[in-house]
């Protein structure tokens, strides 16, 4: 388990790796969310348009 501890620096190194992970995942999650929302908005509008016709 010495590899994980990295002397005294383990906390710094691992927090950087974790932060990278969090930011990439968060950014991608936001992107997916927005895509879904845009998609659904268009869908709702099109459905409403169809119903009117």
């Amino acid at each position, binding site marked *: 388990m010495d*590899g994980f501890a*990295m*002397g*005294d*620096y*383990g906390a*710094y*190194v691992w*927090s*950087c*790796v974790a*932060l*990278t992970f969090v*930011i*990439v995942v*968060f*950014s*991608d999650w*936001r*992107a*997916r969310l*927005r*895509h*879904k929302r*845009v*998609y659904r*908005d*268009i*869908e709702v*509008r*099109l459905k409403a348009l*169809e119903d009117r016709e």
Partner: protein
Amino acid sequence: MWKWFHQLASPPHFYRIAEILSPWLAIPGLVLIAYGLWQGLFVVPMDYQQGDAFRIIYVHVPAAYLSLMAYMIMATAGAVGLIWRIKLAHAVAAAAAPIGAAFTFLALATGSIWGRPMWGTWWEWGDPRMMSELILLFLYFGYMALRGAIDDTAKADKASAVLALVGIVNVVIVHFSVEWWSSLHQGQTVFKKGTMDAEMRIPLLIMLIGFTLLFGSMLLRRIRTEVLYRERRTRWVREMILATGDGT
């Protein structure tokens, strides 16, 4: 060649190709990152000066590199959109900004965490690279704020492209002026470039390639959303959505 390019730049084509391409970038990217991380964190011997703290560069350097690359893409795409009036280019610029800002923030955060054991402070005002990176983050904020403030998409595209182009000239000037400035105030040891052993360099290279691929995939996903939003009133979107029913 030209015809192929033209076809790619047509929104429906791009939308479909990006959907297929996105995982093909993400998966190899993630594999490379996993391998590079394992190499960088466990296999490579520690630096005799910095100890194990140097391992932070395996995430810090790719983040810093992508923060600049995203800006270049944003500005180039903006210029292409302004000059040749290619609408897809503006979508690319709009998509690149938030990712670039995220990586800039990441570069700053990891740099700061690295600085804590190395310099003894979380923030070193005297380091030119951290200052440049901070100003870059402000430029991203300004860019996104300008986009957000203009309701008309076409107008927002053009105005923010002008800003990005002015900004890119400035990034260079910022770099040099900050370097000059820090040379006046230098007390502490700054992030030394030094020479790096091939042993250490190869995992870094792998990480860089891996992150670039991942970035490409993230960018494609955001461009798709932009394209979908911008083309929401066109026939192909209408047909596509009515045909697929639900789901994304």
